[in-house]
């Protein structure tokens, strides 16, 4: 009994404690949280608010992907399927039966986790690029199925009926409401990751990433470690998908199960720094505004596609110069003493 209490206290402490991080990082993150919290009061224009919501959503996607892709080192290019499972579970259940949002979320998670469990064992027989290709293919198969199936709305998609007043059962409200909604979800996943990165499972997962044979010699079941992580990542993707459905109130397999989405999710973590807690947040802070402002700006002037070129350039530079992303650059600079330690 006392042991159990102690364990619970330990988990809570790990979830909310940032004491192991340098002071500079803690201050920067606190400033970031204050900024995001007051953002709707500072900025009244609607487009930046939309950009902010999208940033938080992708930071959240990135945090989830970072588990299997960053800490686990398994490049998963199929996270869009899990986003899709979450989004469709929510959209369909609300539209068909009027089920409250909060009940559709666990259903989405269960679907995503069950499907991921079914495909995980055969997929983890593959390694490296072959694993990445397999994840990509599985996601594409699901997208095609959802496009052809009639009962899921097919290519027409699903429209969630709009309520007249702000509504907590179906989570429909104005931009500010969605801002705090996604901020809360983001914080929940962030705190989970803060616990995770210090957990036994995190060490085992990183051991598997760095050297499977060595990990096995220390009693770690390599395949099961990967599968477990893959399932948690799937669950986190599904939560993001459920949010997406009630935020846009319209989904179809081309927006929630698209290959682009899988790649953008992987990119947020990889550009920012896979395998670090800040990586996905940094990555989303760079890629999402770039995507939404540059795309709008240049597209408006007739330079279609230039944003994609810039995008691709960033990715190539990151991949060639610093595979650990922007966070890797910061850490390297810090080791040389350019940035003051906290």
């Amino acid at each position, binding site marked *: 009994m006392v042991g159990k209490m102690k364990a619970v206290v*330990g988990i809570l402490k790990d979830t909310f404690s940032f004491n192991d991080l340098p002071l500079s990082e803690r201050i920067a993150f606190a400033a970031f949280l204050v900024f995001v919290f007051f953002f709707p009061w500072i900025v009244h224009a609607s487009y930046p608010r939309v950009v902010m919501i999208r940033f938080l959503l992708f930071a959240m996607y990135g945090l989830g992907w970072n588990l299997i892709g960053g800490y686990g080192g398994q490049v998963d290019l199929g996270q869009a399927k899990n986003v899709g499972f979450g989004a469709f579970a929510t959209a369909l259940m609300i539209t068909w039966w009027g089920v409250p949002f909060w009940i559709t979320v666990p259903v989405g998670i269960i679907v995503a986790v069950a499907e991921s469990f079914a495909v995980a064992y055969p997929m983890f027989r593959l390694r490296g690029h072959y694993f990445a290709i397999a994840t990509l293919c599985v996601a594409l198969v699901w997208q095609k199925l959802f496009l052809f199936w009639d009962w899921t709305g097919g290519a027409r998609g699903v429209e969630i009926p709009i309520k007249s007043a702000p509504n907590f059962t179906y989570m429909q409200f104005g931009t500010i409401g969605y801002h705090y909604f996604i901020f809360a979800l983001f914080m929940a996943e962030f705190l989970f990751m803060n616990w995770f990165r*210090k*957990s*036994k499972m995190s*060490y*085992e997962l*990183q*051991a598997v*990433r*760095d*050297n499977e*044979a*060595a*990990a*096995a*010699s*220390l*009693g*770690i*079941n*390599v395949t099961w470690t990967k599968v477990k992580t893959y399932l948690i990542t799937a669950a986190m993707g599904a939560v993001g998908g459920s949010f997406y459905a009630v935020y846009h109130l319209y989904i179809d397999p081309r927006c929630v199960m698209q290959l682009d989405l899988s790649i953008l999710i992987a990119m947020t973590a990889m550009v920012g720094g896979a*395998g670090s807690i800040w990586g996905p947040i940094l990555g989303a802070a760079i890629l999402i505004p770039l995507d939404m402002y540059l795309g709008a700006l240049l597209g408006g002037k007739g330079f279609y596609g230039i944003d994609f070129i810039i995008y691709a350039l960033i990715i190539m530079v990151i991949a060639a110069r610093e595979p650990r992303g922007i966070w890797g650059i910061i850490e390297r600079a810090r080791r040389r003493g350019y940035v003051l330690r906290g």
Partner: protein
Amino acid sequence: MFLEVKNLYKEFGGVVANAGISFGLEKGEIVGLIGPNGAGKTTLFNCIAGYYKPTSGKVLFKDKDITGWPAHRTARAGIGRTFQIIRMMERLTVEENVMVGAFCRINDREAARRDAQEILELVNLEEEANAHPTELPIATQKRIELARALAIEPELLTLDEIASGLNPLETIQIIDTLRGIHKEKNLTLLLTEHVMEFIMRISERIIVMAAGRKIAEGSPEEVARKEEVIKAYLGEKYAKGK
């Protein structure tokens, strides 16, 4: 018998790497496994530790049949190992490398960290705890391998060429460390090595392999005098000359 290998065969396609190996270890023994390159030593190690499934034959550990168990299960059963080619978790620190081993028995992070620190002290690595293993020299990395394997608290420790690539001084140091650990932890050690100086000094008993077979077994002095052993290492001519 603490560890018993019975008539073990391991074939890769047509190549027979282990052809009917049988031997046993008593608890607390230090046994060396020697043989020329390609004798099948590492294959035998991998069969015992669960990295390969033997084609036929049996491996018994503490009277339990562990033939074909996967590596993580043999580790949990109490067989630790180090690798011939160093395998570090390079993005983790030295201490974290050892902690991963301690997590095999302990769930609590801080308890695992304390354990890791104790073990690092035991192998004289407390100074390097926060370094990344790939920044360190080979001799140090070999010690990290040893510390990590010790962290699972094995009863049988199999060391695959722990002294190769070390200079004579480092070899003597690792012998001292191993002797200390052997005594303190009541371990059973099974080692392979090319460095004869090392294996002859540390082993109580030696098993000689050549071309996948066991050709001799005995105390270091006995084995060094055996004709088959000299033949395997130096060829017919020298054996006859003797």
